[in-house]
């Protein structure tokens, strides 16, 4: 097990390196850079070439590509992501608060989704091909079909009309005022969580259906066990693994994938930052964000695999 963990951790390195190369190259293929983007927003695009070159030199953009890459890589190895090319402030500072916001939102959406998905999935499987099953399936497919940003718009709209509630403009962190913070994040969490629960519900249903056909369930039934006991003790334990996998992978994607929802609810999270930095051609910030999201994803993946091996004795890796 120990060796397996080490192996898995080492296997992350080439993937992360690939991500780094990919994002580095992709960004530089695009014509224009942060200096041009800045002058464009200031409305004076006819700056002297000399001035622009000076700016570029300050940001290190005049260096050859490979040198820029090695500088960036050495920085990462020292856990130093450098300064944002747009604002000039340290990237870790810029990301910190936004990371907290996005992570909290992802966790809340995930909790809500699981509370919805697991019971609904079990219910649909137990009542397979009845109207309950059909209703749950329609509910979950509708969840997959509804854009979470539209659901968000509808939520805000409902609250505007019914409660005259206006989404606050400034974000309050959890540690400053928990109540205010939860009020702010509960709605986006619900909007995202609904879609996310649909994935889990479908997985729970199909995993449960498979397990319910197993011999040991028939045995348990034949010896007259209480249905509730069979479901919780025998079936759920065996069916929950794939559900947890799918849901954790979705969770990993939530961190950077809330771009559109954050826009609707006016939340300044990682997704919003990503859109801004892409528009600003802020190379260092975009790179840092992509690396953060990819690392997070790989680590969630890693923990899922470890948990798998730990929970399920049938799956023991070399």
């Amino acid at each position, binding site marked *: 097990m120990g060796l397996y963990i080490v192996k898995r951790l080492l296997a992350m390195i*080439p*993937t*992360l390196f*690939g*991500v780094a190369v*990919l*994002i580095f190259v*992709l*960004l530089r*293929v*695009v014509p224009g850079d942060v200096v041009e983007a800045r002058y464009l927003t200031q409305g004076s695009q006819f700056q002297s070439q000399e001035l622009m070159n000076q700016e570029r030199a300050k940001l290190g953009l005049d260096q050859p590509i490979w040198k820029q890459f090695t500088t960036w890589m050495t920085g990462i190895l020292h856990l130093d992501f450098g300064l944002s090319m747009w604002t000039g402030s340290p990237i870790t500072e810029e990301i910190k608060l936004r990371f907290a916001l996005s992570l909290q939102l992802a966790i809340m959406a995930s909790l809500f989704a699981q509370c919805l998905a697991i019971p609904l999935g079990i219910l649909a499987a137990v009542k397979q091909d009845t109207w309950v099953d*059909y209703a749950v*399936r*329609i509910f979950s*497919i*509708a969840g*997959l*079909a*509804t*854009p979470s*940003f*539209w659901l968000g*718009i*509808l939520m*805000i*709209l409902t609250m*505007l*009309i019914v409660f005259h509630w206006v989404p606050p403009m400034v974000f309050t962190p959890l540690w400053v005022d928990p109540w205010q913070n939860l009020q702010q994040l509960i709605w986006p969490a619900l909007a995202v969580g609904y879609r996310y629960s649909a994935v889990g519900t479908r997985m729970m249903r*199909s*995993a449960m259906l*498979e397990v319910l056909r197993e011999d040991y369930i028939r045995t348990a039934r034949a010896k007259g066990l209480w249905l509730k006991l069979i479901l919780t003790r025998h079936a759920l334990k065996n069916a929950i693994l*794939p559900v947890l996998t799918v849901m954790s992978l979705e969770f990993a*994607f939530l*961190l*950077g*994938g809330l*771009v*559109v929802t954050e*826009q*609707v609810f006016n939340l300044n999270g990682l*997704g919003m930052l*990503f*859109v801004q930095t*892409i528009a600003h051609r802020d190379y260092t910030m975009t790179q840092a964000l*992509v690396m953060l*999201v*990819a690392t997070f*994803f*790989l680590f969630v993946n890693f923990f899922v695999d470890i948990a798998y091996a730990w929970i399920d004795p049938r799956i023991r890796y070399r």
Partner: protein
Amino acid sequence: MAAAPQTVEELTRAAPRAPWLAAILNFIRRRPLGALGAALILVMVAAAIGAGALAPYDPLANDYAAMISPPNAAHWLGTDAYGRDVLSRILYGSRTALMVGLGASMIGATFGSLIGVASAYFGGRVDLTVQRIMDVFFAFPVIILALTVVAVLGTGAGNVILAIATPMVPRCARVVRSSALAVREMPYIDAARASGFANRRIILRHMLPNVMAPILIMATAFLGEAILLEASLSFIGLGVQEPTAAWGLMLRGAAVEFAETAPWMAIFPGLAISLAVFGFNLFGDSLRDALDPRLRTQ
């Protein structure tokens, strides 16, 4: 073999029913949800094809006398902030959605399945390398990868298709590869190899047709997802650009700002997106159940 019709009633009832009609009725009876999905898709296709005839107004025409007017007899679903008819824009928007959805899922499925099959066929080091490259793409959330591609290529419908197809390639490749691995062990592949066929011919003519079921399933699943992604990209202003009629675009800007006073601008386009994606998902699910029961758990 069925018993021959005995009575006049049975004869007359059996005669006019064409085989395709019987097949459709059978599909509706056996998979009501799939049939509902197919019906929604048909409505959408009809709207896209017949938009020119069905739409009461030009989707780009501004009517400054009727800006933000609520649904009424002249504008059934109201007008937007530029006085454009919402119904007409939704009808024309189905063209954009279908075009981007079909384009992205076809490109994504084609490249993904080619990579998947080739990777499985060659195996060994090639397979390993391809899988590692796919892992890199997997580490990006779908929308982040699509946004990055948009940043590289620029906005507009054609680039959005490529941007949406990109994250689908590795997903499709992974599923197709696992099916192709089983096909590779089949005796007929050995036979083809023994006959001295070129690798390309074996991959395209012998392996690809035998993994068509998962490819079709992936492609339909992608369709709905691609429509959703297009709407998301257009909504944040990095997808299809104004003044093209696109559902995500219709929800942008004024639709949110005036949501309280003019909810029709926000409600109907979103409804169109949801119904379209809902239809493709329902149909895709039924297709999956019908084509490949083994994939039911995925």
